[in-house]
């Protein structure tokens, strides 16, 4: 059984149908990249997996449990599925350490000592052991994004969603964040990422999902997808990048 299963997901914004029936399953330990042009629905799809977009129709099953749009279900879903955003979204009034400690403490009701220990561990993992007492605006974009990753990891999610995590970064800061994501993939973390870093996706991912006009147009392992795209749309997307 897959960790996350999506069946016939539909989502519209007003008149515009962004997701036109998506089926996707994510297995434990899998590293999946959602690729496609902007407006293809990949970010929206990622956000539905975390319940940030309420779906109009379809079924989401996480760890064998069907998720409705009730608050309790959404909170349960989010305990299992972490997310990292393009714009980091660190809480400006908390230090890096407090950002990471907050949710374990208030949501999981861990003791302060417990939360602190996990937070320190996670910040060390992303290479920021020396920046724990810094506030977000005292950190570079790359550092902020790594804190955001540590913050999501501290909740011990089963799946981590990454929404264009390097798109808002200056070019010289991209690699430090990608290195952390690569490390997570190597450790066996289940990852779903929306990314424009095609070389990175090719090296790290087990599966590429190419989205086009609200549908999954083509999927496959990275080598096949890049070497032998089956559809002209993917060929042109891959070709346009080369």
């Amino acid at each position: 059984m897959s960790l996350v299963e999506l069946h016939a997901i539909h989502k519209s914004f007003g008149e515009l149908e962004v997701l036109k029936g998506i089926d996707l399953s994510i297995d434990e330990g899998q590293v999946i990249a959602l690729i496609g042009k902007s407006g293809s629905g990949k970010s929206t799809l990622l956000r539905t997996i975390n319940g940030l977009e309420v779906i109009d129709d379809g079924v989401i099953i996480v760890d064998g449990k069907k998720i409705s749009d009730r608050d309790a279900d959404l909170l349960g879903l989010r305990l299992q599925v972490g997310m990292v955003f393009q714009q980091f979204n660190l809480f400006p009034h908390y230090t890096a350490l407090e950002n990471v400690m907050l949710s374990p403490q208030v949501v999981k009701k861990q003791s302060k000592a417990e939360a602190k220990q996990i937070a320190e561990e996670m910040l060390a993992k992303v290479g920021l052991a020396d920046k724990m007492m810094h506030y977000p605006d005292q950190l570079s974009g790359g550092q902020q994004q790594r804190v955001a990753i540590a913050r999501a990891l501290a909740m011990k999610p089963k799946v981590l969603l990454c929404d264009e995590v390097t798109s808002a970064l200056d070019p010289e800061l991209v690699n430090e964040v990608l290195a952390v994501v690569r490390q997570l993939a190597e450790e066996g973390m289940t990852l779903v990422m929306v990314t424009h870093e095609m070389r990175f996706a090719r090296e790290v991912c087990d599966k590429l999902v190419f989205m086009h006009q609200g549908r999954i147009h083509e999927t496959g392992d990275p080598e096949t997808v890049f070497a032998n795209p089956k559809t002209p749309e993917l060929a042109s997307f891959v070709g346009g990048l080369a």
Partner: protein
Amino acid sequence: MAYKFDFGAIVPHWQLLFDGVILTTELTVIGAVVGVGLGIMGAWARASRAPVISQIVGVYVELIRNTPFLVQLFFIFFGLPALGVKLTEFQAAVLAMIVNLGAYSTEIIRAGILAIPQGQIEAAQSLAMNRVQIFRYVVILPALKKIWPALSSQIVIVMLGSSVCSQIAAEELTFGANYIQALNFRAFEVYFVVTGLYLVMSILLRMGLKVLGNFLFERRRHV
């Protein structure tokens, strides 16, 4: 001019002014603390998903913001006993200040909440926080920080507005002034001095709120 100013005529009555300053301060502190608390709840209700509650709070805010404080005070002190709610002068004054500041601060704090980027809320959601946790840990402090100057100004306005509470014989600073001028017939001198006292109080209050803001929103730098 024939008139000779005699500010010395106030000196024997300084105790009345002192008591008035104390009472005005009490009114202001209670009014501000409870009023801002009410404003936080009001802002929360305005942002809530329950449209009925949001609308009720909206009506409250508009009613208070579009009627004079003096009339609100009279309504509470003279009008409410008709409904069996009998309040002392002090209680009525403090209640009027709370209700008044509650409405203004609801609007001010709501603006602060609306200025919180959506990404902050989404990040908190993705960390499995519920509504109350998001409001408490992620939204309210940065929201208050953004609107602290506006909120401070409103608290000063409410403090100055409390001078009309003398009209229901709440024994605050203006009441003291009225009393003294009835004793010594030195109305101008008394009101001149009391105006100065209010000016000093408003400057001190403003400074105090600034210090409080720095304390509330300060960064405990461990760096």
